[in-house]
C-alpha cells in the first residue's frame, strides 16, 4: 500500500462526520469509544446505540464535529479497540441518513389548523393532541427537521427531542 491509495474508510471532509461503529455487545465498549473521541478533542453531537440484527452485537451511529485532519487517525484508533468489529465514516452520498424528532407545539384551537398544515407539508404525524398543545413526529434527514423547527418557530415550541442520526450504507455493502 502506498499513499496514492486512498483509505476507503475515510469520507472526504464535509464539515460534519457520521461514523458507524459495529461492536461486540460487551461491558464498557461505549465508554472506550467515547474516550477515544474526547481525548482527541472531538465533540459528539449525536449518538444512537441499539442492538444489531444479531443480539451479540450493537450498532452505534455517532455524529461528530472536530478537526478533519485527525479523522483518519481517530477511525483507526476506534477500529483498534478489541470490541470494535468495524468503524466507518459516511457522508450523505454513500449512505441513507435519517433522524426522528418529536416537537411539542403549544397551539390554541385557532392556531391548530396552521400547525397541522405545516406538519402535513413535512410528512409529520400528529401523535398527541390536547386543547392547548400537540406533538408532531417527523422523520427525515437532519436538514428537513431543522426546516420544520424553523417553520414552527412562530408558534410556541414547548419541547423538542431528536433521536440523532442513524444511517445505512447504500447498495449491497455493509454499513
Amino acid at each position, binding site marked *: *500500500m*502506498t*499513499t496514492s491509495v486512498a483509505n476507503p474508510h475515510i469520507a472526504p471532509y464535509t464539515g460534519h462526520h457520521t461514523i458507524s461503529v459495529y*461492536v*461486540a*455487545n460487551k*461491558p*464498557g*465498549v*461505549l*465508554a*472506550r469509544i467515547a*474516550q477515544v473521541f474526547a*481525548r482527541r478533542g472531538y465533540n459528539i453531537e449525536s449518538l444512537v*446505540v441499539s442492538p444489531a440484527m444479531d443480539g*451479540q*452485537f*450493537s450498532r452505534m451511529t455517532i455524529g461528530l464535529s472536530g478537526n478533519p485532519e485527525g479523522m*483518519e*487517525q481517530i477511525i*483507526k*484508533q476506534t*477500529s*483498534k*479497540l*478489541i*470490541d*470494535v*468489529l468495524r468503524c466507518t465514516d459516511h457522508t450523505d452520498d454513500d449512505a441513507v441518513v435519517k433522524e426522528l424528532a418529536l416537537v411539542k407545539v403549544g397551539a390554541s384551537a385557532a392556531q391548530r389548523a396552521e400547525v397541522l398544515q405545516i406538519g402535513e407539508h413535512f410528512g409529520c404525524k400528529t401523535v398527541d393532541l390536547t386543547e392547548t398543545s400537540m406533538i408532531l413526529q417527523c422523520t427525515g434527514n437532519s436538514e428537513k427537521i431543522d426546516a420544520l423547527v424553523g417553520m414552527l418557530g412562530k408558534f410556541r415550541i414547548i419541547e423538542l427531542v431528536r433521536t440523532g442520526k442513524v444511517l445505512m450504507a447504500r447498495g449491497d455493502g455493509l454499513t
Partner: protein
Amino acid sequence: MSATAVEHKTSPEKAKDQKSSIEVKGPSVSREVLDGAQALVRGLERQGVEYIWGLSGGAAIPIFDAIVTTGTKIKLVLVRHEQGATHIADGYARVTGRPGVVLVTSGPGATNTVTGILTAHMDSVPMVVLTGQTISPMLGKDAFQEADVFGITMPIVKHSYLVKKTNDIPRIVKEAFHIANTGRPGPVLIDIPKDVSSGPCTADLDPPMDLPGYNPAIPVDKAGVMAIAEALRKSKRPVLLAGHGVLISRAWDSLRRLAETLQAPVTTTLLGKGAFPENHPLSLGMLGMHGTAYANKAMIECDLVMSIGSRFDDRIIGQAPKFCKDAVRIHIDIDAAEINKMIKVHHWCVGDAREILDELTQHVRRLDTNDWLNHLNGYKKKYPLKYKKYGGLKMQYILDELDKLTGCNAIISTDVGQHQMWSAQFNKTIRPDGWLSSGGAGTMGYGFPAAIGAQFAKPKDQVWAVVGDGGFQMTMCELATAALHKLPVKVLVLNNHYLGMVRQWQELFFENRESGVNLEGNPDFAKLAECYPGAKGFTLKRGADIRKILKRAMDYTDGPSVINAEVEKADNVYPMIPAGRAIEDMILEAPKYKMEKPTGST
C-alpha cells in the same frame, strides 16, 4: 452495554456450600468443582505462568488462597508495593517476551498499579493485572476499598474486564493472555469481585475465546513490500530506524540480514537498543533528543528513512514537518493507527516486523552506499561521545567502565533522567534482551524493580539497575523482595543529590533558577542496603576506585548490591535537541548563549 449492571447470581455463603458438594461431569472427565479463584489459577497454569508478583488484601484473599489450595507450581512473590509488582512483571515480560502477571487487591492496591500499567501500555509490554474487587452487590456503593479500577485504567490498557460471572473466568483468562501478547502487546486488566472469585466455576477450563473484533494476524502485504523494495533500490543514503517493535517481534536477526544485505546504517530508538548490535560497523547507536550526533546527522542528510517498529515518537522527530523532509519516508509497524500519525510517510506496510523484513530481504540487493558509510564514519570520528575523566566523578566515566567490565553482556535496566540518557549512550547493547527502560511513560522508579523482574527471568545473567538518587527512592522498598529471594541484582545509584534532568533544563532554559530539584536529605544508600539481610552496600567516590567497586558488586552473588556513587552534582547531558526543535538544532556542548524556552512539553 452497561458497565454498571450488577448480577446477583450467587451469594458467597451459598457458593461455599456448593463448593464441597457438587460434582460436575465435564466433556470427558468429572472433576471436583473449583471456585472461581481456583479456576483462575488453573487458567494461569494453562498459559505457562511461572511467577505472580503481588500484594494481598481483603478482596483478593480468595485468589491468594487458591494459590495454596490448588497446590500450583506457580510461584507467588510478595512485593512491598503494588507499583513494584507491575514494574517487576514488566521487566520479566521484556526479557522473556511472555506476559508478566500481577495480583493485587481492590481500591488502593489496584490504584497503586496504575503507574506500572501506564508504563507497560506506553512501551507495548505484555502484562496481565488481576485486581480483587468488592462483592458485586456492593459495586458503585462506595464499599470499603472500592475503586472503579475498570474505569480508572480504561485509557491505559489494551483491554480490560470486570468479571460478572464466575463461569466466565476461564474464557477471560485465556482471552487476556491472547490479547496481551499478540499484535501490538499491552497490559490487560481483570477486575474480579470477591463473590465471583469465591463462587463455583462449572465452566469448561479451556473454552473457546469470544473476540470477534480482534484479528491480530495480518498477512504480509506483498505489494507494499515490493513498493518499499523499489524505493530502497533508488536510495544512496538510506538509514534504517529500529524501534521496540523489532524486539517484540523477535526480528533482530532479520534486521541484521537486511542491513548487511543493503549495507545500510542502522540507528535505534531508546527502546530499540538491542535490536541491532551497537558494536556492529553499521550501527549508529541511538538517535533523538540525547542520541549520538552521528545518528542525528544521518537523519538530516539521508535520502531514505525506514522505520521498523518505531512510532516516530516526539523524542525522535523533534519538529514533525522538518523531520527527514526531503527523504523518502517508510514505515513498517504492526499497528495501523501509527501510520501517518506523527509524520506523513510515502510507503508503509502494516504487519509483523520479522515477516515483513524477511520478505523484503528477498527483494533487495546491496546498495551503493560506500560513500554514505564513509561519510558517516567521518562523523563518528569527528563527534564521538565523550567526557572528561578528571575533575569530579562523572556518571559517564562509571557507565563507560561498567560497559567495559561487563563486555556489554549484562542486562541493563535504567530509571529515568540524566543517568538514563548517559547509560543509553555509553552502555552499548548487543543482546536483544540487554536493555530495559521506561521510554514512553518516562517512569521514575522503574529501573530497580524492572531489574528484579529481569533477574527472575534470567537468574544466571548479570543484571544491573542503573538508577538516579531520585528514582531509586520511589521504589527502593523492593530491596526487601530482592534480598529475600537472594537476587544478585546490582544497583548502581548515580547519586548527584539532584533531580538532574530537570535541573539541567532549569539551568539551560530557566536562567538557572532551581526549583524543586535539590534532593537534600538523601539517605546513605550503601548503609541503607546493609539494613536488609543479605544485601551489600558499597560507596564509590573516586574515579580511581570505579573498577574495584564495580567488580566487588559483580562478585557478590548472594543477594542485591547497592553502589552509592557520589557523582558530580551539576553536569549536563549532550548532545541535546531541545524539545519541539528540529534535529538541525542539536547542540553538542554547553551553549555560550542564552537558550530560548523549548516549545515541546518536556
